């Protein structure tokens, strides 16, 4: 029943802060078409996707991935020092989209500054501070992956904490 297990994995949902958001997520999941009078932003069901194994990562070298699907490029980073929100045994593995949430330009990673930099309009995001926009035009901090690391070092992405550029649902 491999298929069923996969379904369970796909159905793994994260309920995070934002009470109205979570409630609407439940409604969306249990009814084909929600009939609530006051719709609110709803969570989506994220796939649990293996992106890499810890052994694949070198400290401060971005590892190209895509999540939640092939049209959504991103990177995994092993920062070498633990950060808030970092995954893995050393608490230092993070993953981010590399598409700028302002106008959708692909960003580059500065290993010296450990920031993502957008050539479109000069926005800068801090990889060590949860993708906080250091400076720039985006009205979101950088969407970050929710990661789970297995005992064998396999790194799974299981959610994204902000809306990705260019899609009105993170999972299409």
């Amino acid at each position, binding site marked *: 029943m491999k298929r069923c297990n996969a379904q369970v994995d796909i159905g793994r949902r994260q309920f995070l802060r934002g009470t109205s958001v979570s409630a609407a997520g439940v409604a969306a999941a249990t009814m084909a078409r929600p009939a609530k009078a006051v719709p609110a*932003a709803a969570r989506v069901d994220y796939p649990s996707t293996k992106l890499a194994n810890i052994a694949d990562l070198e400290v401060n070298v971005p590892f190209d991935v895509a999540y939640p699907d092939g049209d959504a490029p991103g990177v995994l980073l092993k920062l070498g020092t633990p950060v808030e929100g970092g995954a893995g045994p050393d608490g230092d593995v993070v993953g981010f989209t590399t598409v700028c949430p302002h106008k959708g330009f692909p960003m580059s990673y500065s290993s010296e500054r450990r920031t993502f930099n957008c050539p479109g309009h000069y926005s800068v995001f801090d990889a060590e501070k949860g993708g906080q926009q250091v400076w720039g*035009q985006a009205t979101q901090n950088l969407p970050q992956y929710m990661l789970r690391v297995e005992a064998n070092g396999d790194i799974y992405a299981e959610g994204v904490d902000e809306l990705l550029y260019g899609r009105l649902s993170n999972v299409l």
Partner: protein
Amino acid sequence: MAYKRHIDRLPIIPSDAQRHNVTCHFCIVGCGYHAYSWPANRQGGTAPSDNVFGVDLAEQQFAETEAWYSPSMYNIVKQNGQDHHLVIKPDPNCVVNSGLGSIRGARLAELSYSEVRSTQQQRLTDPQVWRYGQLQPTSWDDALDLVARVTTRIITDDGEDSLIVSAFDHGGAGGGYENTWGTGKLYFGAMKVRNIRIHNRPAYNSEVHGTRDMGVGELNNAYEDAELADTIMAVGTNALETQTNYFLNHWVPNLRGSSLGKKREMMPDEAHAPARIIIVDPRRTVTVNAAEMEAGPENVLHLAIKSGTDLALFNALFTHIADQGWIDRDFIDQSTLQESPDRPPLYPARGVADANPGHLTGFEAAIEGCRMSVDEAAEITGLDPADIVKAAEWIAMPKEDGTRRRTMIGYEKGLIWGNDNYRTNGALVNIALATGNIGRLGGGVVRLGGHQEGYVRPNEGHVGRPSAYVDQLLISGQGGVHHIWACDHYKTTLNAHRFKSVYKRRTDMVKDAMNSVPYGDRDGMVEAIVAAIRLGGLFAVDVDIVPTRIGEACHVILPAATSGEMNLTSMNGERRMRLTERYMDPPGQAMPDCLIAARLANHMERVLRDMGRDDYADQFQGFDWQTEEDAFTDGYHANAGGGEFVTYERLSAMGTNGFQEPAVGLDGDRIVGTTRLYTDGVFSTADGKARFMDAPWRGLQAPGKAEQRDAYAFLINNGRANHVWQSAYLDVQNDYVMDRWPFPYIEMHPDDMADLGVSEGDLVEIYNDAGSTQAMAYPTPTARRGETFMLFAYPTGVQGNVINPGTNELIIPNYKQTWADIRRLSAAPGSVSHVSFKSKEYVRD
């Protein structure tokens, strides 16, 4: 962790959604947006036929797509009492921003009042009065009756000079033509109030009297000119952060060279290259960084002058350009004053009067009066003499084919709130006049602006020049009643420490008096208030959209509507006028300012008639407006130059592009505007000739500045942050902004921090003879030792506390030249632990 919304899906705009024209109500640039709205119980779909974009939203959209909006562009608001989805997204067809949204404007929806999504719950919903020791909600009639009775009593007893007014004079939110007319007709028509000040300065005056007196209106070019110039000279402006999409959409293409085709097409008979840029600013800003990235460092000249020495630099440039013969002699002969009147007897120490602190003259006399060698200027400004010469060459040396260089000069608060405002403004305009760069493609000498503009009022000549220094009147115990319209001096004035101390004491006297009388005893209440005023108290009325810091001292609070909750017109930095159409309801009982002014006038008329003062009451007639359009028709349509061509209906049809003021006629139903001013070489003086200004350097002009510089260790330069609009009056309730800036930052050189034992994020105290305040230390290796930069007007650390009261002759404040000492207050608090302190500069890899 950085703030994240955890929103991973947004409602889709259905194909039949309503669409309203919106001009961003924040900065001068006025980017075009559209507000889409539809009932809360409906939504669009991903199929092309089910959404307003007509595209398949089940697919990833790519860079710069029109078919995406961020969570900050979405909300649920009331429309005619019913919940509606709202998306406010940038308009790709607006010529101002071409679909770009800044970090401020792209949050317009999120910054709207929403009961459903709990955004901007701070908004004022009801009139409030001081009752039983606190502010309590009440009806409009009750609140306006109290204001009218106390105000009429004081002005009939003591004259209209005893009514002090603080009021916006600009466009966008907290302003616009409707509202400047409403307040203007009340205070300058029904009354002749003289003791009035503007939101950001302690008097009622122009920020740019210098250029106006020379005959050069300050918004004289078009944004397109930044795409056409050979050289852009930017003075005291950090345009990427403060006129963001003007810089991104009109400067960058020229720096990059992508406007070359347009240059060749519009100006075919001359050589063209990508633009060079000269940036005059004591601080290295993100604007310098971006310019270097786009134009290459070799085409960017950052003149990091010593703070306050702009005038010396401009005079050296003017001198060098003239001496090299790079002037436009035909223009000077045809369009500028040919005579050179005698200097005033005490010049340059003083002008002929405080009202005229400069000396307006012809070109030859100005050159002699302003003459300054490159070496002399290098000594004063701290610049390399070769850089001054290079700047002169970039401004005026003919191009390789012998044609004149086209140079656009833009300036803003670094000059306006800087040393010797009047003469420094004049010295800069001298350069544009001498080189013929006004009224021509790729030219202009323009202020870049803060708010949008939206000024139409009855004649204000009675206010006088210099106008009253209103803060000093309040501090010295004058005035009995203070009406405040969308101003928060506790955050945005100079000498703020002293101002707040006195203001609290005077308004507390009235609160104590009000506490002693049953609220329902209206006659007794008015008598108690008046008695407290006689003892030095102050009765304060605050009209605003949100609770303000100065509002905490006030006795009556009146809730106003903002842009989009009312129809509102304004113009931007190239005089582009648009109508923002009402797309949502105001909160609670809030009303447009123009209608609040009208209802107050109605109540004052009634009270005056009750007092038997029919003649006076008659002055308060003409306020029977029921809508903001009534105020627009009474004001702009009937009074502004070209206003007769402008109606809501025509503006609505012209969308987010509108027209450029002044209107000069109609083409069918389309309003015909004016792309640039002075293309005919006729300037705004009685004889049509522009004036040069004889404007010699005289050091730090404002009282107390030189002494402060000598007494304290650090320059406390100050200004804006990209994330924040104005005094953060809405941002203070925006999690995204407050997450980034829980406290105002102060940029400091790391070695200065080390000397003071300060680490990144530590709270420091900034203190001097004017007062003290706090900020969060932000290590900035590009800062010069001893020179800091602090975020201005922020609620959690008011920079104005340490600005001394010194102004120029025309009561223009000198915020920028401030010096103070710094000491550590505490380690970075927990609310700062997640904050990034990395360089704000973009790097390629």
